[in-house]
């Protein structure tokens, strides 16, 4: 008869709290990743090597002006 006293939804409730934490965590990770990739991309775009290798001189002038 113990089963009658156990709330069958308690695990579901705990799971939703975990999942919501994961969703929050994923958002943080996503933001971190986005920031990281943006920073790397920005750095790569602005590094002199990248500019001289991949962009015409006129663009280089535009960037540095």
């Amino acid at each position, binding site marked *: 008869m113990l089963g009658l006293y*156990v709330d*069958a*939804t*308690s*695990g*579901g*409730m*705990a*799971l*939703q*709290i*975990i*999942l*919501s934490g994961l*969703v*929050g965590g994923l958002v943080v990770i996503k933001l971190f990743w986005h920031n990281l990739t943006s920073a790397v991309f920005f750095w790569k775009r602005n590094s002199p090597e990248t500019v001289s290798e991949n962009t015409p001189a006129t663009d280089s002038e535009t960037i540095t002006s």
Partner: protein
Amino acid sequence: MVTYAGKATTDIELRPDTGSFRDPSGGILLSGDRVLRYFRPAAATPFNQVYDSGILDSLHVKGSLVGTKLLAPAVEAGLYSEAMETTDGEVALLLEHERIPFLSYMYGWPFEMLRDAALCQLDVLDEALSAGFMVKDATPFNIQFVGSRPVFIDVASIEPYEDGQIWTGYSQFCRTFLNPLLLQSLRDVPFHPWLRHSFDGIDPRDLSRVLGLGNKMRPSVFIHVVLQAYLNRRTAGAQPSGQSHRPIKKEATQQLVRGLRGTISKLHRKGSKTTWIDYEDQLPYADEALAAKERFVEDSVRGLRPSVLWDLGCNRGLFSTLAAKHAGYVVAMDFDEATVGALYERVKGSFPNILPLVVDLMNPEPDQGWAQTERQGLASRGPADFILALALVHHLRISGNVPLSRIFAWLHDITRAGIIEFVPRTDPMVQRLLSTRKDVYDDYEQGPFEAALTDVFRIEERLQLPGSERILYRFSAK
């Protein structure tokens, strides 16, 4: 507002629906063909918020909500007065719902119907959350099919959303929608016997025991079944802390709902090949006989235009679709679950008045639930105005060992008229049945068949199919 062609209030004798007593916010009252929902005073204010928001309109326009209209006390004073009397003065609001032509339950749906019902439930919840509401329950009993279209019927379970609240129906959704679908999709085990016995569905612990390691490692199965089963075990012995749970962001609940939607929409039945699914492609009689049979059925139904027709042993619905042109509503029943699933996919969107159902006539759904009045059995949902019993009786008599007199007595209980087919023992299909059992069916001959039929019915018309010994009888109650 959500409207439909309601009827004028002429008969206001109300009776409480025997399946509607659990919800503290109100219940269902029936009056003839009218279906009314009442709200108790404490539930009226929250429901007014739901009603005034327009979400019911929006869901109805999309086809996911049953037709619903608010009855004004000034216009329906007699009805309100009668409802107050029936409920001991507990009525603050009355709604009227579009009547569902034939109630069906999850254990009568093939896999595809339960899947579409689950998607309907999730879509209603997702839209409710977006509009600032929550759907507190998540049981297939809150979904009904109008033909092949699932509709949400329990407007009382839509409530204003409170910041940080949990989806209390999540576990119920998993047990009654997701787990049965996973069981059939991953293991090819039909969920129907399980759900017929257990209205609470399949516990994640039970499903977890049935699944193999490979299935358990699927992300959705791991989260919703394995992890939930583990957490249920872990939290089962815990003392209640008395504290409320950590707030959950609405976006997280919507992510969960959409994730479940994605998982369920990708589920398919594992096996689909059965003995009966190709039956219509290899009928045991010639085209000429088939054409005559189709004409006989269509002419009969066209002439009588029954409101509700039951096609017993419908297979993939060859005759159900013919009948649906002239009958108000066709309930197409067959015991072969995969075949009914194929019928559902066939009629979905093209025959709005055909309801496919899995029914084993040797053991149809009984009255069950609380006090055996909560969920109606097959016979309690009748009688039909007309039935089709084509190529059926030899199965009941020979495979089922049911005496002819009992078969016709039962038909007399469930219908007023119909068409029945006599398949003689020389027919290859009867020969196939007899080949694996001792022939103790001396009464299975045309004479005794007609005698048993005319004991309870009157034969209106008969037709021997050309090039065949099969005979069709159109009959009506004496």
